[in-house]
């Protein structure tokens, strides 16, 4: 018996797709196109005239040391967040995989941070670490440590790394848990019989078999750190102190919005766009092939 509902007509599929396509066009392609056009233009200080300048915005951008500095900041920030969020999530997933009985409650708790908006996460951590009032700053001060993310760049970086990591752990955890559960139990049992202790089993069997998941998450996390952490940085440090936490995406905002350099900011957006395209292409290439081992 035919159970499927069959719709006739050419129009319906397009109608069904239209809202999503419209959103994508209006909120993604159109601004992206605008950014590309904008990056070739220079506006005078009063916004009265615009001039087409080819690649001048890019030349200026790449001749400024502070752009390289924001690249370095981004690199440090993203590698720290990726490293900590992946390793902590993996640790939690391994624990959950072992005691799968409590996993339901454990999983729910762990997924919560993911539902928190980035700006809220930033504010949350800012409150906890606010130098004079934050409970954690008070606690570390009692322990004899002078905590001040408003003055010290390394403290500010620690703060944004912590809040960005905290938010991303949930997502990574779920993927790692699914990955762990996809490893046949008998393979692990075979390794146990083959004389491998738990630690050795982890590094020689489980970790290599998880590598497709890890790789996928690595790319997703880097993309996340590049773009989605804007809210965290804006709420917690605003790129400071002294631009110590100004990542590339934050610089787009501060140069364009506060600095008024629309052309330069657009050029930076285009550079970021290219980075994402490259990352996504790498990911598709490997994930599609599905042969990591």
């Amino acid at each position: 018996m035919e159970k499927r509902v069959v719709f006739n007509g050419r129009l319906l599929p397009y109608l069904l797709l239209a809202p999503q396509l419209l959103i994508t066009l209006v909120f993604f392609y159109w601004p992206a196109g605008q950014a590309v056009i904008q990056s070739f233009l220079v506006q005078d200080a009063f916004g009265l005239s615009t001039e087409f300048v080819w690649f001048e915005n890019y030349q200026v951008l790449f001749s400024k040391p502070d752009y390289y500095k924001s690249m370095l900041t981004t690199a440090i920030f993203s590698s720290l967040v990726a490293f900590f969020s992946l390793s902590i999530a993996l640790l939690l997933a391994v624990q959950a995989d072992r005691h799968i009985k409590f996993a339901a409650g454990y999983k729910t708790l762990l997924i919560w941070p993911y539902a928190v908006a980035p700006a809220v996460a930033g504010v949350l951590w800012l409150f906890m670490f606010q130098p004079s009032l934050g409970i954690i700053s008070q606690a570390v001060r009692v322990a004899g440590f002078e905590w001040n993310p408003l003055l010290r760049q390394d403290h500010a970086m620690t703060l944004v790394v912590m809040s960005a990591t905290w938010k991303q752990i949930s997502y990574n955890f779920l993927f790692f848990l699914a990955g762990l559960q996809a490893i046949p139990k008998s393979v692990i049992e075979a390794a146990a019989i083959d004389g491998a202790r738990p630690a050795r089993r982890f590094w020689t069997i489980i970790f290599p078999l998880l590598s497709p998941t890890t790789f996928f998450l690595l790319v997703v996390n880097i993309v996340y750190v590049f773009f989605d952490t804007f809210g965290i940085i804006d709420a917690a440090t605003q790129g400071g102190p002294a631009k110590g936490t100004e990542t590339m995406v934050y610089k787009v905002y501060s140069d364009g919005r506060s600095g008024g350099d629309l052309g330069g900011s657009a050029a930076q957006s285009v550079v970021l766009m290219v980075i994402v395209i490259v990352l996504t292409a790498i990911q598709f290439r490997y994930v599609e092939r599905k042969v990591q081992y």
Partner: protein
Amino acid sequence: MSEVRLQSVRKVYPGGVEAVKGVSLEIADGQFCVLVGPSGCGKSTLLRMVAGLETISGGTCSIGDREVNEVEPADRDIAMVFQNYALYPHMSVYDNMAYGLRNRGTPKDEIDRRVREAARILEVEPFLERKPRALSGGQRQRVAMGRAIVRKPKVFLFDEPLSNLDAKLRIQMRVEIKKLQRALATTSIYVTHDQLEAMTLADQLVVMNKGQVEQAGAPITLYERPMTIFVAGFIGAPPMNLLDMPATGVPGLSLATPVAGPVTLGVRPEHLELSAEAGALAIDLTVTAVEAVGAESYIYGALGGQGPEIIVRIPGRDLPAIGTSLRAVARSENLHFFSRETGIRLN
């Protein structure tokens, strides 16, 4: 010495399922022990307790002279072949076989020698550099065997190792496993639900039912003298004819020496022959179906015209027509009597 001794071994899974209800078994050094039984009777559970993959809820398990209840699988000196082979998918065939030796710190040249020797015996030398996914089912099976034999363990454990292979390969591997086990003389426990595998491989055949051992012994003993109705019905294909006999007797069936009381009478299809003469047992049946399988044929008939179905095996292909009335007889040494209440053998 590496005999395996189980004493009143029990397994209660969390949740309360009692999968194994007090099993005692002695498997002598070098013996090939086969566990058979219907699905869910606790065969795998028992094997996994010997392996150390499941905790033992009661009783003791010892390998050699050592009680191993609390010993980690790694330290029991056993090897196991899984139904799905459980090869390490990211390692080459060579590394799959070498893994256990590396974990035990065997010197490199010794590992190489042993892996190559096992590969030669199992004819997987051409695939040593391949990953498991590039192997056929039969080749994977051989690698899994190789992984077990390189370590020279005290005991081999097999959990339905051949059930994922096609019929022809299964027979071939069955013969090879038997030869290999003979050559290595390693104590082995083998779980299967294929009774042909069980009959041909076993030195000691253990029939399990509902978490308990029904009967253990040489395969031929179980065939000739099943001690319970369950074993009688489980061993042999086509299965033994089992007839409930009330004290008043059954129409169409006559015994030379009548038995007292309600019993279950068992007689194997191959022990019935078509004959007009009287025997220790004579049954009259009406043919309802016939099957020719080549060298022999099976006749299905209704006892006394409309009673329970009886199977008779006859040589050749000279088949009676459906609806014919026939008489089949059996000799007294081929008759099995069981108590109807307890299922235990009476004669």
